[in-house]
């Protein structure tokens, strides 16, 4: 490709401007294609964070509304006085509003059936109703309160949050918060959909198989750091390409065999068919 204009076959010489323009268009097209493809992949992995509007009040009206909701939806298993019902549901006295928030806002309560573990589903109550039930339960037995204020702290705590996460959380929730199996059908759920308040209330109340991380185990600053780390990790892109679940070597091995060896086998068959 010399700069000298070619004179063969009467074609117009490609000027420098034309080369620049066509080069720019090609580059823009290529970048655009990659960008759109990447955005499609990346969008699926970042859930929208939601933040609780406010903590449940001690307003008697709210508490009464919460009681009504409780008596419609929860009383069958948790009993008239929150004392629990044998073989159906535990006592809620002293669990606190934080536990109610975690269980109801993530859709775990009301539960469809008794299983090894209650799974997350679409919430049955909206945010206001959830807080009303929480206020009622809190008014009866007290307990862990829904945290308010800054739940993440400042970004200086990210590295510390990572260390704390790996020490306290990764052994069940996996290094990237993608969850893992526990014994006999129980599991540590993936934290994909968890918002800041869900993470906090989970640490405070230790739902299902999770231990309680009270303020003696993890201080408020440490909880902020962990929450900040988890949420930042979730929002962060994957510089290496498709994350294939951020689940470690098992999906990697699967891709190596199915995609890698699979593609090469197809090529071998293609070459074999040609010769």
């Amino acid at each position, binding site marked *: 490709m010399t700069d000298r204009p070619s004179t063969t076959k009467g074609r117009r010489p490609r000027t420098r401007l034309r080369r620049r323009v066509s080069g720019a268009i090609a580059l823009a097209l290529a970048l655009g294609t990659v960008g759109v493809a990447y955005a499609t992949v990346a969008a699926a992995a970042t859930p929208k964070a939601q933040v609780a509007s406010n903590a449940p009040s001690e307003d008697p009206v709210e508490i009464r509304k919460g009681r009504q909701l409780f008596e419609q939806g929860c009383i069958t298993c948790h009993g008239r006085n929150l004392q629990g019902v044998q073989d159906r549901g535990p006592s809620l006295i002293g669990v606190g509003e934080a536990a109610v928030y975690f269980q109801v806002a993530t859709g775990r309560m009301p539960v469809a059936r008794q299983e090894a573990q209650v799974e997350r589903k679409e919430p049955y109550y909206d945010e206001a109703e959830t807080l009303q039930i929480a206020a009622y339960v809190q008014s009866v037995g007290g307990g862990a309160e829904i945290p308010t204020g800054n739940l993440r702290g400042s970004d200086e705590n990210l590295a510390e949050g990572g260390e704390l996460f790996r020490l306290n959380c990764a052994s069940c929730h996996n290094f990237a918060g993608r969850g893992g*199996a526990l014994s006999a059908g129980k599991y540590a759920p993936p934290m994909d959909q968890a918002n800041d308040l869900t993470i906090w209330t989970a640490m405070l109340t230790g739902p299902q198989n999770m231990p309680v991380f009270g303020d003696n185990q993890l201080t408020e600053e440490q909880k902020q750091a962990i929450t900040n780390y988890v949420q930042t990790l979730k929002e962060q892109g994957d510089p290496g390409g498709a*994350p294939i679940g951020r689940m470690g070597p098992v999906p*990697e*091995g699967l891709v190596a065999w199915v995609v890698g*060896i699979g593609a090469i086998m197809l090529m071998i*068959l293609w070459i074999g068919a040609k010769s």
Partner: protein
Amino acid sequence: MSQTTSERRPTPTRRNTGPVGKAADWADERYTGSGLTRRALNKVFPDNWSFMMGEIALYSFVILLLTGVYLSFFYDPSMTEVRYNGSYELLRGVEMSRAYDSTLDISFDVRGGLLMRQIHHWAALLFVAAMTVHMLRVFFTGAFRKPRELTWLLGVTLLTLGIVEGFAGYSLPDDLLSGTGLRIAHAIMLSIPVVGTWVAYAIFGAEFPGTDIIPRLYIAHVLLIPGLILAIITVHVGLVVKQKHTQFPGPGRQENNVVGERMYPSYGAKGGGFFFLVFGVMAALGGLVQINPIWLYGPYNPAHVSAGSQPDWYIGFLDGSTRLFPAWEIRLWDYTISPLVWPCVVLPGIMFTLLALYPFIEARLTKDRALHNLLQRPRDVPVRTSLGAMALTFYTVLLISGGNDIIAAKFDISLNAMTWAGRIGLIALPPIAYVLTYTICLGLQRHDRQILEHGVETGIIKRLPSGEFIEVHQPLGPVDDHGHSALEYAGAAVPKRMNRLTHPGRKAKGFLWKVQDPDEVQDRSGTEAALEAGLETNERRELAGRPKDPEL
């Protein structure tokens, strides 16, 4: 040697013109390599799609060497404690080893570093996978039989070295995952009866983790094991050249010849092109699919562990055996035999010993002492094929069990159910695989013989004057009065569909445009001429109003 050279090539420069020819003459005048080169270029390789699997492993190894050299420019195998201060925000300020620090730098701050790391890792997974697939091909076609037992042994050695090499590489970044892997390797060493403690101390140099293991693994990973692998590959491939490649039985193919393509131009072009295809797959994986994201794992700390800490797939079967094996701890007075020793030391020991010795075991059992250059179709040796299927099933159950927690979490299955399914499957499935494979082999054999006797189904249904309906069959050779042909099965593939018979030779199809007009292509195959003779007989029979296959 020099005498013959001067006789053969009196004026070499006159024969060869052009830069390549001149360069070749320049070298030949001095080093007399033309005879060797001629032999190499004229070397004939038999052609079959399944013969290219070993090449995948070879090309992966080349790619591993190339990318590995690049990584070694930037990796620092040191356990010195440093404080991270690179581009990755979530780890800034964290204390870590220099090894992990430099791997993070490769991933985030070295130009092209992450791509190289990812290609290197994908190529490592594919290297062992390709060796496995190649080994299966060699096993199921009987290519390991006399005179190629040594090639098989070297292959098993390469597979083992590849696994060790892979594990050493997996351990180098000193991240949480690889540290957990090393911890388990350390525990396995400790479990060896009597010498375990000494072995572990000899390798680690101190109590776990110590500061010696990463530099030692590094030297093993970049010098010792690759050197060994390279040397053994040379002998392995050299033996294939010396003893010539095996081939499937077929027209003109015999024990004492090799039918195929010459190294130059066709086979060389094919192999060269294939290298770039393999390289393309690995580059695409390295560029598009994230592998071993060490920044997510964090630095190794013996107090930390992540759920789903798995080894790379080639160690997965050991993880699986450990998960499935009951925790039997044997106490003999004041001495304990660790439960780890059975699934992690004894079992792989038995598996690899059986694998290495299989050619000798088979020769002993079949009393077959003959030289074999022709391959066998798996169906023709049902016992071996079924044994292979059995071993493969056993291995696959172990491999799946190695990831059973991930499967349990992703598919909502109880982990305990997965473990028990693995335990039962490990014992129950291999015999089932044996019986099924044996049955399938016999069925395929019968089908081959049926077609040789009765011909290929044409899909034409004919009604006889008597009212009976028959399907017209196309015999593969001359037929007797009953429409049966007396073709012997010779170990070669039997055509089973009409369009395998009637196609007018093979036309060269282009990728984008037509290279050859199908009408211009002459029928090349010797069998097809024979088939045509059969067709004529058939047509005569048909004209005479006789059914072709009264049996059906």
